[in-house]
């Protein structure tokens, strides 16, 4: 049985002005198996962070189901929810924001002690913390007792991963966890995640950086405007991408040893933001008469037309959606 099953999850946000609804996620479905690293790649407005929050029960899906080991997580509450958090944890983009700045950094461990380790003695607790810190390659003497602003970004992220390891995590949702770190420390955190994967941890790696996705993940899911456009085995998706959006993305990635190639069609590839359904744009997905975002003539569309195109199997473990207009 797969660790996590996402089944036709959709999320609608109310646009701030007027009654329109913005679809942040549209009919997303996929599975995460045990010990699997799945990368969710998407640009801004793709809904990837929203999906992470739904999985972590920080927000609720508008429709669809998320099943953890066969149970629907939306009905969890109280004790069952706390049990869920024992197995599913998250680490976020800005390491500093995850710490309450007025307390010491290691308070993040104390936060879980009361609920999850009520009967552990002080010495056993200290030993647990020490082994968790060593597992993330942190020297306990360097980080214990310090305030968050005294630690580097890399140390802050590792500490948060150590906190997750204290519990019995089976799935870690890593939302852009290294995008705010310097290049020289990013790779160390990535290697740490790979090490954890090898000991059985499943990871949902949410990012916009394709090269990172390619480095770490087993399977890749490309998200665009809330819907999956392509997904499957990482090597297959990257080596022969079928969806035009995936191809555009790969073409736009700056590489060290290869210059940007001109677009296949000859014209410059317009960035997605020129033609987008983001919540900020005045375009409404309902029956509004507001014009599309600047620079386009895209009219708002009725809700029914926003159903995502179905995924078609292109080859084994490689699915592609039909191109949306």
């Amino acid at each position, binding site marked *: 049985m797969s660790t996590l099953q996402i089944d036709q999850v959709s999320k609608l946000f109310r646009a701030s002005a007027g009654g329109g609804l913005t679809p942040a996620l549209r009919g997303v479905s996929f599975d995460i198996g045990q010990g699997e690293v799945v990368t969710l790649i998407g*640009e*801004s*407005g793709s809904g990837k962070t929203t999906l992470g929050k739904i999985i972590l029960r920080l927000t609720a899906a508008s429709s669809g189901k998320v099943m953890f080991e066969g149970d629907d997580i939306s009905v969890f509450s109280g004790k069952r929810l706390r049990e869920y958090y024992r197995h599913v944890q998250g680490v976020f983009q800005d390491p500093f924001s995850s710490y309450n700045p007025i307390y010491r950094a290691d308070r993040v461990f104390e936060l879980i002690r009361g609920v999850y380790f009520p009967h552990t003695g002080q010495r056993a607790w200290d030993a647990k913390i020490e082994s968790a810190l060593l597992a993330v390659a942190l020297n306990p003497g360097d980080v214990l007792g310090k305030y968050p602003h005294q630690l*580097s970004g890399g140390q802050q992220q590792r500490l948060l991963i150590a906190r997750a390891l204290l519990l019995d995590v089976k799935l870690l949702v890593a939302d852009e966890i290294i995008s705010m770190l*310097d*290049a*020289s*420390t*990013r*790779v*160390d955190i*990535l*290697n740490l995640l*790979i090490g954890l994967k090898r000991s059985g941890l499943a990871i949902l790696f949410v990012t*916009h*950086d*394709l*090269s*990172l996705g*390619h*480095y*770490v993940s087993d399977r890749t899911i490309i998200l665009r405007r809330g819907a999956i456009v392509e997904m499957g085995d*990482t*090597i297959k998706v*990257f080596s022969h991408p079928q969806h035009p959006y995936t191809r*555009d*993305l*790969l073409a*736009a*990635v*700056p*590489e*060290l*040893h290869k*210059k*940007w190639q001109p677009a296949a069609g000859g014209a*410059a*590839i*317009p*960035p*997605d*933001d*020129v033609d*987008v359904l*983001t919540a*900020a*744009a*005045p375009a409404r997905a309902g029956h509004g008469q507001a014009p599309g*975002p*600047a*620079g*386009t003539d895209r009219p708002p569309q009725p809700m029914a037309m926003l159903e995502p195109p179905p995924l078609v199997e292109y080859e084994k473990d490689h699915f592609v959606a039909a191109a949306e207009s």
Partner: protein
Amino acid sequence: MSLKVENLSVAYRMRAGDCCPVDGVTFTVADGEIMGLAGESGCGKSTLGNSLIFMEGRMKLLGGRVVLDRQELPIADFRAMQPLRMTKVSLVPQYAMNALSPTRRISKLTTDLLRSHGVREDSVLEEMKRRLRLIGLGPDVLSKYSFELSGGMRQRVTIILSTLLNPSLLIADEVTSALDVSTQRAVGEMLMEFRDRGFVKSVIAITHDLSILAQIADTITVMYAGRLAEKADAGTVVKAPLHPYTQMLLASLPEVGLRHDQTTLTGIPGRPPSLVSPPSGCRFAGRCPFARAQCAQAPPFEEVAPGHRVACWKVSRGWPEGGRV
């Protein structure tokens, strides 16, 4: 030579003491050159870029001079710099996309800017529309408010505003950082196009992202802990770097095509030194696998091959590869 910076040192006043994020920096940027200024956070690259146009309250010029188009820039004098800003030197600051006032339309922002420089708006507004069309945005952008545009669009509009008066030097501080991959490409190509068309003469692109620089920059300067480490053409820096820091930095970048089960990337252990009380001698010595006794003396930033300058004893003295002796 379009821009010549000689022995520039800029300090920051802080309660903990004065720190010196720019320490004796010397370089030149030719007409029509896009120079990439790369380095990790805290190395001083933003301070360097900002000091060329606007010395913020806590910044103090310790020494050195800046000559642009054979005219010395009075960078320490706020008022004397005023007529030169936007016309000779222009800046696109970090997070520029958030710098547009949300209560005014773009057209009003433009006319305010032009009026403050005593320029007649009519002809320049036409030019602005032309430039917007160049990058694929319609003239209706002018009648929008900034919050109606997406992040990428705002960033590009800010770049257009900063270059509207055709400055000689454009300092672009992390202009591609918070953007999606496709928008990054659009912005990068925009900088190159503007330089090709003569809207700006030279560009200093400050970023931590070496792969973007590999795409758009003619030369790359790597900065470490307040000092320049290496400067050469983009191709040379990326394919055959000489400074150990540059080499290790490049070795830590994941690229599409690399996977963890084939190649393990490694980061750089340790952290940059404190700039309040930096070590004397080479500042990278603490993390450098090639460090020797000689490194207790600061290596000069000198030319070791035509157009290629490095500040490293190992390079200038020709020490062999293979670690410490």
